[in-house]
């Protein structure tokens, strides 16, 4: 019985940072912009949080800094997508590459030979959970209310479905998109910050390892709502938690490389089997031409 408990705990620990990223991706995608840059934004958040936490010796300042920096990157992304109508997918991939390179270079340049470990950490709230875990749990209903019960949430969703209608009603599609992108970036940054400063307590170059993309898949798999996204993220976290136990099963029944593949295979299967009819927002990825 305790092993089931451990598995649940493990799943939660591994899933929570990705939940933030997925919620962020959800907002941007609902606004009709493909959040392909989630991987890059996540690692930027991770690095910023560590760098600021180390220099100020305050983990919450690091957290806030990550939110700010990544939020700005989100706006930058939105700006290029909306104003210049750049191919969002390629832009996202380029952003990921850029962020990976910049964070590695800065990490090496600023911290050089020693990868410093944080001496500060998030407060423990019992049950092996840290404060940001609670923030994460709370974010799900908050996000739900925001998206479906507030005016701004409605506007963001409308921009993703039918931007022309929004503009016709006199609102600025661009402005709403930028707000959505900032919120999105902020959440992704939170995810990255929690990922690095939460349990690893250090920045490791390239540490996100594809999780930004998995978050993106989770949004589609979760049918574009916060609760579904959370469940999807849990599934992938579960995949990662299980693969350790598969390996530990002794006698290496499954070669360990196959166990390591599990989260990625799950993502492909989830996308294929369960995302038949695209519930993407109608205007997702289509640059809006303002008349």
């Amino acid at each position: 019985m305790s092993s089931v408990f451990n598995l649940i705990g493990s799943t939660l620990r591994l899933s929570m940072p990705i939940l933030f990223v997925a919620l962020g991706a959800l907002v941007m995608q609902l606004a009709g912009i493909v959040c392909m840059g989630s991987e890059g934004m996540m690692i930027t958040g991770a690095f910023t949080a560590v760098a600021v936490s180390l220099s100020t010796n305050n983990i919450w300042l690091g957290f806030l800094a990550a939110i700010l920096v990544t939020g700005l990157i989100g706006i930058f992304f939105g700006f290029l997508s909306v104003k210049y109508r750049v191919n969002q997918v390629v832009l996202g991939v380029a952003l990921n590459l850029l962020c990976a390179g910049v964070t590695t270079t800065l990490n090496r340049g600023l911290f050089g030979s020693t990868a410093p470990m944080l001496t500060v950490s998030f407060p423990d709230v019992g049950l092996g959970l840290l404060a940001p875990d609670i923030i994460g749990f709370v974010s799900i209903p908050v996000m739900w209310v925001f998206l479906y019960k507030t005016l701004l949430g409605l506007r963001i969703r409308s921009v993703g479905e039918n931007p022309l209608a929004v503009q016709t009603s006199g609102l600025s599609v661009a402005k709403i998109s930028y707000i959505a992108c900032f919120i999105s970036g902020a959440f992704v940054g939170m995810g990255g910050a929690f990922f690095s400063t939460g349990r690893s307590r250090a920045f490791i170059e390239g540490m996100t390892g594809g999780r930004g993309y998995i978050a993106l898949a989770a949004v589609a798999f979760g049918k574009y709502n916060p609760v579904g996204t959370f469940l999807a993220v849990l599934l992938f976290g579960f995949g990662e938690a299980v693969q350790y136990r598969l390996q530990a099963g002794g006698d290496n029944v499954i070669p360990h490389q196959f166990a390591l593949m599990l989260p990625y295979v799950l993502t492909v299967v989830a996308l294929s089997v369960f995302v038949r009819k695209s519930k993407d927002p109608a205007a997702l990825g289509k640059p809006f031409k303002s008349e």
Partner: protein
Amino acid sequence: MDSTERENVLIRRDKIIKEEISMRLKKIVALVCTFAMAAMSVSGCGSSASNGTTAAAAVTTAAATTKAAAAATTAAAAATTAAATKAAATTAAAAAAKSDVKVAAVFPGAINDQGWNQLAYEAIVKAQKELGVQTAYSEKAEASEYEQLFRGYAQQGYTIIVAHGDQFYDAVCTVAKDYPNVQFIVTSTLQSQAPNVNGCFVGGVEGGFAEGAIAAYMTKSKKLGVVLGPESTSMNDDLKGYKAGAAYVDKSIEVDSVYTDTYEDTVKGKEAAMALIEKGCDVITQENDFAGTGAIEACQEKGICNVAGVMESKDYGNTVLCSVIEDNTLGIYMMIQRGVEGKLNGTPTNFGFADGALQFSGFYGKFAETMTEDQKTKIKAVVDDLTSKKLNPQDYVTE
């Protein structure tokens, strides 16, 4: 569209075209400037592009010839700082280069990983301090560039080149043929190629054997867990030796292992250890350097005994009983020393307890207090026998 609106459109178009032209002009000016600076820097850059003090000299020459003098002088000062961060004992390096031998090292990972790569890095730092050699290094080498790295250093006059890991062996052998006056040291392998490729191995099977035996004496559940990093020869040898050591003590003991594929990610280390503990392992060993500290964390939380491998781990938790330290630093340093003395000739060396490269840390922590005298004696006996070479781990390897 009436005429005034049309005029406005035309005016706007003109403005935009003018802006575009000025932007393009700016771009062209920038282009010309950069080319000029690049050309001057290439001519100014000397051929000695190592991380030692010569780097500062080359930068100052380039700085004197560029237009952005201010930026360059800060860069020059900064480059010296960079050179300083790279070669830890800078003052020593700048002051007395006792030897004019140049030693280069290539690492597969980061020099700050608190383990495998860091130990080798410290070896060249030690060589710099005590032998007075000039050093340079390259981190996170990737397979597609191995040969080039070695050729690069050989061409620049480095006569001792350390390749940290057996994955470099092929590339080293190919390059070594073209540079017979350069001695290559390849770690984690006993393969060698006369006259100038020297394999050396610290720990490996012997280290794993010691860890396995110690863990076997401590286990009650007869299940041992090993947390591994990326797959490599030395990692495989560690595991092989571990299983042999456990079998030496008791053939019925089961050894489970989890590959985390990382030397740095502590979260993975912790999850792997947790999984092993859940399966009933009551002694955990980790071989993946910094990531292994996560495994120790898991042991702390669950009160599980930890027999540490590779590096001294007692500060990471009080459930760590002891560490079987692979002093790669000492082993590699000894190889470099031999190279400086001209004693390398393309033969392999196997370092173990006997020459001090493997070290037993002694007992500490919670479990040291609760263990029986019998256990202590038996463990000490294994270490002594390995040191005196009375006990040969290879006899117990089954694969």
